[in-house]
């Protein structure tokens, strides 16, 4: 009977109830929309980190990352590469030779990280080919070619075909300089990295570093993100003397950003719900005050205060929850549309987005995993909103209420 009364009560003032239900629906749409957008942004960022920057895992000599000394190659690197590639979880594993040095042109110089890569493998592993926006990329016959990032190219006024000199130290700490010609300019969507990373052919760099056919890094790409931890543990167990790091270890700022944004999105949701709570509170308060006499009569007849509490609470829950499915459905439809077509945020500043490592087109993703939390929050909202009206209702004295 309480449920029936509560349901009918919310329809006593149809327009008022519909306005609140619409507010809840639009609030849901906005809240879930923000969560979906953030999820899309973070997914995109993580994918960029994994697919274009570091891979799922990287293996190094344990001392290499302390000062990037070229002598600290991966011991037994080729055998290790073969071993890593043999795991079914591994999609691809690529070797890289790394050196830190100076890029010098006639106009100036800039500190860079020189990545020695095997082009055909790197194109697959980090989508390097797709990132090239000017030039053709490496040519097999030409050894001293280099790919530079767009930001560095702009800074150093480099174009395809421009000549530059790379200077760095070899394994014996001798200063080495060599001229390279720009074979392509790439843009990865992460401007700070584009300013630092340059790519040359692994064989060319190894010749200059005197590292033979060795290398410093194996970047591993897995078939499934979920295998990350298991694979990291497996590689650590089989290679205890090496440094095996996941993308979360290598790019902790990305992991932190994902976690922070996750919490931040909940805060936005809570702010939206609190704003809605005031609307619902106002409606329920009006509803209770309008029915003072009726509630007084119910108390007079013998309705317990607990039942009055449940009645007002149920009405509030109905009022709140009624708009929720519509809000979720609208959010799902809007999110699905933009997930397919992408949401162009270039208006917010292409360079600013790139400087934070974000693509300008975001593909929002419906936050299914947060749906249960959202529903709990909505119920919490209803409970919060009904507190004052409930107190007003249960504190009514029948004799005073009936006198009205």
């Amino acid at each position, binding site marked *: *009977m309480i449920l*029936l009364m509560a349901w009918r009560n919310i329809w006593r003032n149809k327009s008022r109830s519909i306005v609140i239900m619409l507010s809840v629906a639009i609030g849901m749409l906005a809240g879930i929309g923000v969560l979906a957008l953030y999820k899309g942004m973070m997914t995109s960022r993580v994918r960029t980190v994994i697919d274009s920057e570091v891979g799922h895992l990287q293996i190094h000599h344990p001392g290499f990352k302390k000062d990037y000394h070229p002598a600290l190659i991966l011991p037994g690197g080729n055998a290790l590469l073969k071993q890593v590639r043999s795991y079914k979880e591994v999609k691809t594993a690529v070797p890289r030779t790394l050196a830190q040095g100076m890029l010098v042109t006639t106009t100036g110089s800039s500190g860079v990280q020189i990545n020695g890569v095997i082009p055909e493998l790197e194109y697959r592993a980090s989508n390097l080919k797709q990132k090239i926006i000017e030039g053709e990329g490496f040519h097999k016959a030409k050894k001293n070619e280099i790919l530079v990032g767009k930001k560095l190219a702009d800074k150093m006024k480099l174009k395809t075909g421009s000549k530059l000199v790379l200077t760095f130290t070899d394994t014996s700490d001798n200063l080495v300089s060599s001229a390279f010609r720009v074979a392509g300019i790439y843009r990865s969507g992460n401007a700070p990295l584009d300013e630092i990373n340059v790519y040359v052919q692994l064989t060319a760099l190894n010749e200059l570093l005197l590292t033979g056919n060795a290398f410093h890094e194996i970047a591993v790409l897995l078939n499934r993100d979920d295998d990350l931890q298991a694979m990291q543990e497996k590689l650590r167990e089989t290679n205890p003397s090496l440094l095996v790091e996941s993308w979360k270890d290598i790019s902790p700022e990305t992991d932190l950003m994902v976690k922070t944004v996750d919490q931040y999105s909940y805060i936005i949701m809570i702010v939206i719900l609190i704003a809605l709570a005031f609307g619902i509170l106002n409606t329920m308060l009006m509803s209770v005050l309008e029915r003072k006499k009726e509630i007084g009569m119910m108390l007079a*007849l013998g*309705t317990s205060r607990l039942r009055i509490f449940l009645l007002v609470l149920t009405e509030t829950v109905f009022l709140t929850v009624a708009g929720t499915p519509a809000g979720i459905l609208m959010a799902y439809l809007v999110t699905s549309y933009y997930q397919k077509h992408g949401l162009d945020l270039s208006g917010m500043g292409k360079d600013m987005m790139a400087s934070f490592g974000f693509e300008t087109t975001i593909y929002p993703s419906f936050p299914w995993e947060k749906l249960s939390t959202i529903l709990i929050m909505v119920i919490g909202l209803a409970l919060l909103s009904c507190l004052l009206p409930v107190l007003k209702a249960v504190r009514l004295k029948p004799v005073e209420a009936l006198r009205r």
Partner: protein
Amino acid sequence: MEKTVIDAHNISKVYNPETIPVYAVNNVHLHLREGEFTALVGPSGSGKTTLLNMIGGLDTPDEGKIYISGTDITQLSAGKLIDFRLHNIGFVFQSFNLIPVLTAKENVEFIMLLQGVKKTEREKRMQQLFKEIDLEDKINVRPAQLSGGQQQRVAVARALASRPHFILADEPTANLDSVSASHLLDLMEKMNKEENMTFLFSTHDQRVIERARRVITLVDGRITSDTAVVPTSVPHEQVNS
């Protein structure tokens, strides 16, 4: 010997006790036995409604004791008083006070649901009550679609549904036309005679006073007369015939 249903001793209700005290009810003794059909009369402001509210456990006296079927209701906590009202007292209000979102049937059933009466018994009782109030064809109609007289009959059925020890009716005919009022009084008289239900009315209405078998007059919060009378009016059916 007939049971005592209401036994009020020296009850008083004072408003503004610390400034200018106004005695709404002043040292009233009232004794009602089972099956009585009593009208509480008096001018406006004489304390009728206050007295009725105190007897009904809706208000508390500042002095005195009220025993309902042997229970001192002035000693009951607010929660226990609600429960006591549910099981022992039936109310009929001047402005009907049906729950507007419930149908006539649901309004009557509501009280029995609160009492925890089983479904089969509820159905049986409702059938019987709607037959008594002659509104069997209106059970699924909401109060707004009923006339004032019909609403008040549903209110009487609701009061009777809980099988109370007595019914308190505060100006039950005040908002009714003469035909509806007569119908309602017929119904209440019938319940009084056939089911020995005790009724206590507060009223100004001569039609009620004429039907009452005991008339208590209240002036300035004091009982000035308490008379057993022989009803002078005739039932509505006889008037029509």
